[in-house]
């Protein structure tokens, strides 16, 4: 029994940043990298199932990314993943979620897990597409925005809740193997202990080449993608009228706004 967890090393912008010379991305010097927040929850969900199971379960963290993505895979190993797999080739640079999904699907075929978890979306590019696109390449049943999951290892189906808009939930049963995209709040992700961080540092990260997966350069990058970045820019967005002064003066102005509102609505 095996659960594959797709994880992404996301990037946040430094307070000050510059757009790259070609105008199509941010200069990488200004990016702060970390494990995607959603993926922390999907990894925890897999580890929880493993810990509750009588039969052995392998939790495998998989990431499509360059060598620096080893950092998030080590984090996954420290938090309870049994193995970590990273796929990279320079041709993957510039891939959109569809091209990344094609690579992930090839890994899933090789690993043959019972479930694939992915985050609902990434905190940086927020496509909310990679998990479900992977399911399409595999032709597996799939569901998005899972906020509660009941799965007994070996069972033919899983039962979960989807978090819809406006505080509504849906309870759904799905045939396995399946792809589920996991929502924030489904569990409380653990912190890795110092000991497990040390142990994870000694574990191998399996590096897989595109050719090992039967894929070529044409399957990834811009050619393998369903969209192409034309231009990235800082938008002229509206900005709040700033209330200046110290906390006391700011609070006094805020109090006036509140009293005015109450006067109006009374």
């Amino acid at each position, binding site marked *: 029994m095996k659960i594959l967890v797709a994880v992404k090393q996301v990037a946040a*912008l430094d307070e000050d940043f510059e757009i790259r010379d070609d105008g199509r991305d941010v200069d990488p010097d200004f990016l702060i990298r970390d494990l995607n927040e959603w993926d922390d929850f999907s990894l925890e969900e897999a580890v929880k199932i493993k810990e509750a199971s009588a039969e052995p379960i392998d939790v495998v963290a998989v990431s499509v990314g360059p060598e620096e993505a080893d950092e998030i895979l080590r984090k996954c190993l420290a938090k309870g993943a049994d193995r970590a797999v990273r796929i990279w080739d320079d041709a993957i640079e510039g891939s959109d979620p569809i091209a990344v999904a094609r690579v992930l699907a090839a890994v899933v075929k090789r690993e043959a897990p019972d479930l694939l978890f992915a985050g609902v979306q990434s905190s940086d590019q927020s496509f909310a597409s990679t998990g479900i696109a992977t399911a399409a390449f595999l032709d597996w049943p799939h569901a998005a925005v899972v906020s509660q999951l009941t799965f007994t290892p070996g069972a033919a189906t899983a039962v979960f809740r989807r978090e819809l808009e406006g505080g509504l*939930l849906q309870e759904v049963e799905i045939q396995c193997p399946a792809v589920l995209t996991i929502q924030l709040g489904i569990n409380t992700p653990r912190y890795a202990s110092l000991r497990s961080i040390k142990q994870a540092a000694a574990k191998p990260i399996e590096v897989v080449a595109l050719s090992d997966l039967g894929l070529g350069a044409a399957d990834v990058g811009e050619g393998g993608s369903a969209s192409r970045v034309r231009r990235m820019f800082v938008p002229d967005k509206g900005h709040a009228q700033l209330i200046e002064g110290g906390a006391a003066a700011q609070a006094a102005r805020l109090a006036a706004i509140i009293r005015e509102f109450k006067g109006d609505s009374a």
Partner: protein
Amino acid sequence: MSGILVIAEQRRGELRPQSLELVSAAQPLRRPGEVVSVVVLGKAPDRHVSALSVAGVDEIITVEAAIAEFDPDTFETALGALIAQRRPDVVLVPHSVDSFGYAAALAVKLRLGFATDVFDIRRIDGELVATRGGYGQKVSVEVDFPGRSTVLLALRGNSFKAPEQSGAPRITVFEAPPVAARSYLREFIELPAADDVDMTGAEFILTIGRGIGEEANVAQFRELADAIGATLGCSRPIADAGWLPKSRQVGQSGKTASACKLYIAMGVSGAIQHLAGMKHVSTIVAVNSDAGASIFGVAKYGIVGDIFEVAAELRRQFAGDAA
């Protein structure tokens, strides 16, 4: 390749409001003679025909499905067959929890150009260009779709205004191929109110976010909310951590604060889902120590400062008022 397909979304017999926003988004994309068709899929889809008969819709395509509610296999099979038959140049869907479940799969299966969370679309030299956010909405990203004859775009809610005038579209029935669904909807569950708060009806909300730091700090903001006469709400991380019940979460996936007129957000950075759920509020005041927080982009007033200091001073301002 001609025509624009708009995929309407319905749930429990109600058309979702984003469906009509897509109709407006489609208009500037029309090329001469090009038709805008709205697709409505479900059990007895005819019931939505009158609501969808708005200005700018030339045709409504009804697709009868065996399953009343959204199901990924049903949607992908029916829409896949329709797109293959019509060969439209643009397909518009809402960027919603349901489309998260099928749009990317449709793009893969039909080899469509594809982008999500799009808030602006235009044609530049005849080529479709979509704009979306990047790096947590700090930048805008223009994408195009070289070599793709059909492009599927998922549009962010509240980015386009629904048409107000009615229209007289023709009605077409599309027979979808049979499908064996691999998942099964058991039931809908309403979020139970853990305390007797009504966020939906609240006109004045004070919301707390990650900036409050720890659970022990919730109490002082609860007292502040009482003192100023606001309903206490929270952003997702606070509800997920269990510091406040889920029924107090506002934003897209929490309760819709539809009656809210004055909204004070303290320590809320402003994830897109949160902002999208509050966009209708006339007066948003954001208090945050990070001058670069996204919420300052939608707020009317901004206070860059320590939320604890501002909260304490505000409390003092209302100290003489009866609770």
